[in-house]
């Protein structure tokens, strides 16, 4: 399966709340030392849930 979007993480803004990791339906994201990282880019279905629920403006979902 190929990625439907490219996820940009602005690490400087991320406070490590992990809301995005929990509510990603295809488990694309994971936490790495209190900052989110893209662990499984190919699984992204471009649902935008992580961007919508990121309280810190740290995630941008660029649809491909």
């Amino acid at each position: 399966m190929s990625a439907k979007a490219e996820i940009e993480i602005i690490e400087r803004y991320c406070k490590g709340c992990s809301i995005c990791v929990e509510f990603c339906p295809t488990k694309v994201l994971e936490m790495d030392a209190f900052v989110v990282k893209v662990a499984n880019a190919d699984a992204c279905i471009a649902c935008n849930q992580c961007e919508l629920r990121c309280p810190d403006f740290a995630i941008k979902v660029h649809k491909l």
Partner: protein
Amino acid sequence: MAYDYEKHIRAGKLPHIWCPGCGHGIAMKGLIRALDTCGLEKNNTAIVSGIGCASRLPGYMDYNTLHTAHGRAAAFATGVKMSKPEMNVIVVGGDGDGTAIGGNHFIHACRRNIDMTYVILNNYIYGMTGGQFSPCTPTGHKASTTVYGNPDPIFDISKLAIGAGATFVARTTAFHATQIDKLIAEGIKHKGMAIIEVLDDCPTTYGRRNKFRSVVDMMKRLKEIAVPVAAASKMTAEQLEGKVLTGVLYKEDKPEYTEQYAQVIERAKGA
């Protein structure tokens, strides 16, 4: 391209001051999308707030903003709207600011049905000042000033607003991110007082005192307690125990205050 929030935010203001996982950021994103959907121009829009965590929101927004005295956001916003009725006025504040310290201003702004949109971020607590209980802290829950459990019954902000005379009342939660902008946009388009209550999470001063192990637990709770109005009509009182209704709770058309006041001015001129 991803949605460009930063064109609505003052340069260099991010990252914001809110704690990790605080839903105020999610609500702010919703407000930005709503302003965008309604096509409000920056120069013709004023965002007004009082004091508190939620009231820091306008400081980030690249609009006309007014950060005022504790609880007095609705009063200042009324002043802005009366002097410039053509201006779009948005008020943002928390539950403590809006319903305790500013309770009087809140109900009278509702009663007048003045054309503004009040987004009230209800996180069940006074966050900024140290976690004191607010009128929205659930009965039995703990705050820094109710360490043995809060004995008070709560204010239902939406019911309060309906009772006081607001003509558009809606409720959603920080979990239901897409509903936030839809309801705020509907509130902005409504002619009259629109109250949008956003149930929110405060992990730092409320969550950790009330056995929420993480931000994610608080978000899951918001997801669980929310019942859309349409679904609630098919549920029994037992099933609705502990739930809150979300969506548009009340809407009616009534004369708007600045228009009524313009007529008073005309009558005075003719006298």
